[in-house]
């Protein structure tokens, strides 16, 4: 992602350093548009020169210095043309240089400031996602639009509007204080996980773009874990994404059809990702400050431990979902718990729990009911539940999967 016309060297630097360069430039000039334009110009210059000169020893430093010079040039040009215009572009007036606010937390990486600004709770979730991918990931507006199956015009408008709000309402460019972190961290994590899930929901949209979206989410997750190593939910989110990503090779068959966890070829799982994810889960356990991402990561770590589906420690998974319900209970968590209970105590016990949940609009609730009814031999009811699930599923791959399951019920299901 992030461009197709750049040389491989420039492209690698672009992926790794675009977000940092925009973040540093925003810190210096207090203006997102200026920072973005300057960084893009610097990469354009790199694409022209590096094929001849070779990649400089510190490519990131070269990009940032070049971008800074370009931004200064542009401000000078604009100042010469219209002093007032140049001033109006700044988030902070020139006589009020951006200084590190006293209340800023211990971590001082510009990218962290940028991600907290992009994911400010005063911005709508869709805008937070688009801005984060654009400014930190370096995705073009067209790429963001394609990844989320919305029009390019809508995406462009979202990004423009969000940048204008950051400037006009003066959303601060800083890492929240420790006291504010409990309110401000969840939207950041939610944005990264949403990007990951969007990429993981294979089948709809451009497949390649979607794989890249997962990679981008993992990259953002790694960045957060590097910058906030003491936040267990940050580590939990990264662990969760790595453990799910590890199963990607077996999640769909050769035709792209969905394969259930129980039916996956576990030899295809990425052992390195699993080891990394499990180590993060262990680090979280040592901290003993559980949260939803850590618990979901732990559930996935239990699955990763089982060489075959039959060896899965479902009691452990039920215990983890019990904890999830205590820490952050919701009907969806209760649904996952019911699935685990069905493995331990049988489908009737699971179905009783599922039927007690008010999730009629959620396709997975119907899909889980359908599967439990099928296992109980209540085929007609199972067929009706599959129909309900199919009607509510938005993803083509999932819908195809549900249709196959329904067809497999046989004639009585008709």
């Amino acid at each position: 992602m992030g461009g197709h016309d750049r040389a491989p060297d420039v492209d690698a630097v672009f992926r790794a350093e675009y977000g940092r360069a925009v973040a540093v430039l925003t810190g210096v000039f207090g203006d997102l548009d200026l920072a973005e334009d300057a960084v893009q110009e610097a990469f354009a210059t790199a694409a022209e020169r590096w094929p001849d000169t070779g990649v400089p020893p510190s490519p990131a430093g070269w990009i940032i210095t070049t971008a800074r010079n370009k931004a200064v040039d542009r401000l000078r040009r604009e100042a010469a043309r219209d002093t007032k215009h140049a001033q109006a572009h700044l988030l902070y007036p020139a006589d009020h240089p951006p200084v590190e606010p006293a209340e800023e937390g211990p971590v001082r990486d510009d990218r962290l400031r940028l991600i907290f600004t992009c994911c400010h709770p005063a911005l709508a979730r869709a805008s937070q996602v688009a801005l984060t991918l654009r400014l930190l990931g370096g995705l073009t507006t067209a790429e963001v639009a394609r990844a989320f199956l919305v029009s390019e015009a809508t995406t462009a408008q979202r990004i423009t509007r969000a940048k204008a709000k950051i400037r006009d309402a003066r959303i601060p460019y800083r890492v929240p204080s420790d006291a504010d972190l409990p309110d401000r961290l969840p939207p950041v994590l939610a944005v990264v996980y949403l990007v990951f899930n969007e990429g993981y929901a294979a089948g709809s949209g451009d497949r390649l773009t979607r794989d890249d979206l997962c990679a981008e989410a993992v990259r953002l997750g790694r960045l957060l874990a590097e910058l906030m190593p003491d936040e267990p939910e940050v580590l939990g989110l990264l662990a969760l994404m790595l453990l799910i990503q590890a199963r990607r090779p077996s999640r769909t068959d050769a035709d792209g059809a969905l394969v259930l966890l129980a039916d996956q070829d576990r030899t295809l799982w990425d052992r390195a990702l699993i080891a990394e994810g499990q180590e993060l889960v262990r680090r979280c356990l040592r901290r003993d400050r559980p949260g939803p991402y850590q618990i979901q990561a732990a559930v996935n770590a239990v699955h990763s431990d089982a060489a075959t589906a039959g060896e899965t420690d479902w009691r452990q998974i039920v215990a983890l979902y019990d904890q999830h319900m205590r820490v952050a209970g919701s009907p969806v968590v209760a649904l996952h718990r019911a699935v685990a209970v069905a493995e331990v105590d049988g489908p009737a016990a699971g179905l009783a729990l599922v039927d007690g949940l008010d999730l009629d609009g959620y396709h997975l609730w119907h899909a889980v009911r359908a599967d439990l009814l099928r296992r109980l031999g209540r085929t007609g009811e199972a067929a009706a539940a599959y129909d309900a699930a199919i009607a509510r599923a938005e993803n083509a791959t999932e819908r195809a999967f549900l249709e196959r399951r329904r067809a497999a019920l046989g004639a009585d299901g008709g």
Partner: protein
Amino acid sequence: MKQYLLAMYQPVGPRPPAEFLEKVMAELGAIRAELEARDSWVFGNGLHDPDSATVLRASDGDVLMTDGPFAEGKEYLGGVTVIKAEDLDAALAWARRYAEATGLPIEVRPFLGEA
């Protein structure tokens, strides 16, 4: 510094009981005193009912006058406060206090320019 409008929206309907309003007014007074102590208070007051409004519209050199609010709705602008704040986070922290004190939605909007 920047100026922000904190607009309070009230539902149409009967007024809450007096003892509830007294408590709310006392809390609003305390917030105002704090804003003043920090030199962040600019202006603020509650408004009469929308029935008391008059709307003027200029057209074709004429000015048409209508009795009543600009727009009828289930909620109406009940009061405004204008504050000075360093950034949106600071303004939102004050707005949160107003929302908690009144139990009403508060819309925060930045004014153009610098305070």
